[in-house]
């Protein structure tokens, strides 16, 4: 058996004339957390639904655990856990019953199932809410229940489709920590999100999607290193003249400098001690300035450079 868990080759999915996924290929390797990052409508969820055989597709090939995925590939499905974008639980069943119901679709043995359900509740911090009906739970707890239902059967491949949408920061951190822990326990993970910070925090490899296409792929550092701009320095200033701007653009490694609404933004394409060089220049010229902030490039900058728009546009 190869170390490839999921292999998607040239996947194409059309909705009538609109192409939702356009010749999309990727591979998830054993033990990886692969992030699919892209704005809303970029084709992340459609890709996931195709991978899971919920959606038919027009072209391409999907191999999971070295076998072709199909709606009736029960041996493959038994090893997959899914945490969908929207909370998918039964409102008439309590927390324990929900996890037990969905776990029971995978695990036949009663004592094993009971143990797994308890462990899933423990893992997601829901042990104290076993008897609660979903309508009594907060948004964060509902999300955790959604996760518990998806992972209780201890799958080796887990797909998280934007699990932190509309979740408070505390619950979000708990969810992200949980995902890292599941990965440490051996699960390979596909994680879709349009929150670049999350993807950056937990994913070992990232694929950036836009309009159903893969626009970039690599580790967070690989992607950021591919940028022309490697660092930005923002300096608060009441005013600035063209001569100073020209001088700044002449400093080593300065790629661009722009002044806008009381702030000078200097973009640099590499080098070291850049801030020191800039501040030395201001000191020599006796130019007054206010706050100073340096920024390293983000995945948003990667997306901006590739597509010409913000990730959250």
């Amino acid at each position, binding site marked *: 058996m190869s170390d490839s868990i999921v292999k998607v080759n040239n996947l194409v999915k059309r909705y009538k004339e609109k192409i939702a996924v356009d010749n999309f290929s990727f591979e998830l390797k054993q033990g990886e957390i692969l992030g699919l990052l892209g704005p809303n409508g970029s084709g992340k969820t459609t890709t996931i639904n195709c991978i899971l055989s919920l*959606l038919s597709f027009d072209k391409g090939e999907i191999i999971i655990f070295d076998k072709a995925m199909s709606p009736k590939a*029960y041996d493959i*499905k038994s090893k997959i856990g899914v945490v969908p974008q929207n909370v*998918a639980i039964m409102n008439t069943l309590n927390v324990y*019953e929900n996890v037990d119901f969905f776990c029971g679709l995978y695990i036949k043995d009663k004592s094993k199932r009971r143990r797994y359900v308890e462990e899933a509740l423990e893992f997601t911090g829901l042990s104290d809410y076993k008897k609660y009906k979903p309508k009594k739970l907060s948004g964060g707890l509902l999300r955790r229940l959604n996760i518990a239902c998806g992972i209780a059967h201890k799958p080796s491949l887990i797909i998280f489709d934007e699990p932190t949408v509309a979740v408070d920061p505390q619950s979000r951190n708990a969810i992200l920590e949980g995902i890292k822990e599941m990965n440490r326990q051996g699960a390979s993970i596909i994680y879709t999100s349009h929150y670049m910070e999350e993807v950056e925090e937990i994913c070992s490899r990232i694929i950036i999607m836009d309009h159903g296409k893969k626009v970039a792929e690599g580790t967070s550092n690989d992607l950021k290193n591919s940028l022309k701009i490697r660092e930005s320095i923002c300096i608060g200033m009441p005013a600035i003249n063209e001569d100073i701007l020209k001088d700044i653009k002449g400093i080593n490694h300065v790629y661009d400098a722009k002044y806008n609404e009381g702030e000078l933004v200097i973009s640099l394409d590499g080098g070291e001690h850049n801030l020191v060089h800039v501040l030395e220049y201001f000191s020599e010229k006796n130019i007054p300035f206010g706050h100073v902030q340096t920024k390293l490039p983000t995945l948003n900058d990667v997306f901006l450079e590739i597509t010409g728009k913000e990730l959250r546009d």
Partner: protein
Amino acid sequence: MFLRIFFYKIKQLIRMRWLVGWNFLFPLVLASAFYLGFGNMIKDDPNRLDTIEVAYVAGDGINSNFLSVIEELSKETKDHGKILEVTSFDSLEAASDALNKKDIEGIYYQHDDNIEIIVTENGLISTSLSQIVKSYQNYQASFEKILSEKPEEIDTLIASINSNMSFLKKYDFKSGVSQYMQFFYALLAMSSLFSSWVSTAMMTSLCANLSECGKRFELAPGHKLKAIFAGILAGTLLQTLSNTVVICYVEYCLGLHWGSPIYMVIAITSLASALGISVGTLIGSIFKNELALSMVPLAFTMTCSFFSGLMMGGIQQIIQNFCPILNKINPATVFTDSLYQLACYGKTSAYYQDLGIMVLMIAICLIISVLILRRRNYDSI
């Protein structure tokens, strides 16, 4: 997996408050309302079929065998009560005068080789008089055929007639079924068809194109159709239970007799519940819209119930006169007719035909649903 889903579906369904309200409580409330409206009339029904006063026209000569039959029915025997009060008239005009004066309720007269019936209105009396003629003609035809082809089997036919006579005693015309019980039959039909709601609710949580839960369900390594049948069984069981409560409430608390043994009424109603569930399964497999999934079963139930006489007595007769096929394809009418047939005439061929139609409808709904639902991936969700 089948049993787990079955038990979980039961648990889910009984926790749905709207379902308990509409399927359990509403029929009880409506039965109480009907009782307040018609209770006294049912208990003292002027149209209750006691003895029917019928005349025959002797002047034109009536079939002597048929005359023997109606004279037999005008006697009270150990097998049946006095079903007919027979008088004779010399002419059809004289008999018609008596009918118009309401001295009699119907007229038999010979027209060519046929025995015709005249009544002033359609209803239980006309149906009963016509049933007597039909039975007579059936037996006459059987006798003629057996005598000409297999005379040695005449004893078997006589034994069969005797057994039907004792059957007549058990489900005789004097079972006390009021025409107003039609409203209660229609109420049971409505209650049974409400179960179409149960199955659309059940289907919603099992199909990926209907809900998020359905997506999760379809991602699991299990047979979807097996799960749906577990849900159908759970829904039918619950609906039968609900109907049983209504049937017992009407019989024992309100003191109104269904006209047939209560276990028979429950058995037929459970078949109707299965029909309602099957229709709901079909609706759930066709419609994707959440609003449609709740409104279509409601509209279907109320329309069928209306045409079976829930809100307007006698509508079945009107439909029968103008478009009889509607009565045969309306599940509520077929169901009420089966109860009516059983209560008034016993297990006649019409009764078995009604049961057959219901079974056929269940089969059609389920086969179409299976064809639609067997696929497990979608063009869009």
